């Protein structure tokens, strides 16, 4: 009954975070970029849980709950933004949005 070493959990969490960050930087699809942000938040929560389990404190799980709340709110607003962008530009390509400062014809900043 050996406990899981915290270093290995932290290594897994950092690898997950790195994969999410690479996805955020490499991919150009907006939905995949949002999913990469979810991966990074989940990796941060895993690190918090590892710390809380290592020292036997409930603070790690409390922080994970807050991360969960943040992720839910962020993904609601983010998906709303994605839908607005798709309706306005007919594309989910992040590179197509570099003209955001000047709105296309007919579009209005609500």
């Amino acid at each position, binding site marked *: 009954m050996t406990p899981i070493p915290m270093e290995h959990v932290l290594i*897994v969490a950092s690898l997950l975070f790195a994969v999410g960050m690479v996805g955020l930087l490499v991919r150009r699809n907006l939905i*995949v970029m949002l999913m990469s942000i979810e991966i990074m938040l989940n990796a941060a929560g895993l690190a918090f849980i590892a710390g809380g389990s290592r020292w036997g404190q409930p603070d790690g*799980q409390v922080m*994970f709950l807050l991360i969960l709340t943040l992720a839910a709110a962020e993904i609601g*607003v983010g998906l*709303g933004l994605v839908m607005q962008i798709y309706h306005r530009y007919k594309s989910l390509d992040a590179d197509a949005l570099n003209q955001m400062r000047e709105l296309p014809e007919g579009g209005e900043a609500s």
Partner: protein
Amino acid sequence: MELTIFYITALIALVSTTMVVIQFNAVHGLLYLIVSLLASGFIFYLLGAYFAAVLEVIIYAGAIMVLFVFVIMMLNQGKATVEQEKRWLYPGIWRGPVILTALLLAELLYTLTTTPVGFAGHVVDSKHVGITLFGPYLLTVEAASMLLLAGLVGAYHLGRPLSGRSAP
């Protein structure tokens, strides 16, 4: 033995997360992301954080992923996308996620049947989490509720249909 289970679960999480990043189609990436979140929930269970494991499965792999599925469904409309879906959903695309999920299920059954509850490290049960959450962290809970309200209002404002505006 539980160390071996932890390493297998971590490998499943890493492989499925990598597949999320390198998949071209968003729906396939979503399938792998659900597997990755389930594996993370299992790691939470192995670490003794049962409450967080349950919340991970219910909220992350359930609610938030359903939001993603809804948005992907709403963004793909028309007859062309139906044919596109037919091209995407060739049999065999489910093979990778199903294999990873079956591995997770086998691990879960093994862990539930052979090892006693609370074998790994310190177990922080939900009672302590609740006492801490509504004790020293009470103000933070209020801030989180305000954040959720702001997210609700923002999502409603952004998700309105575009009636009355001329589409470009």
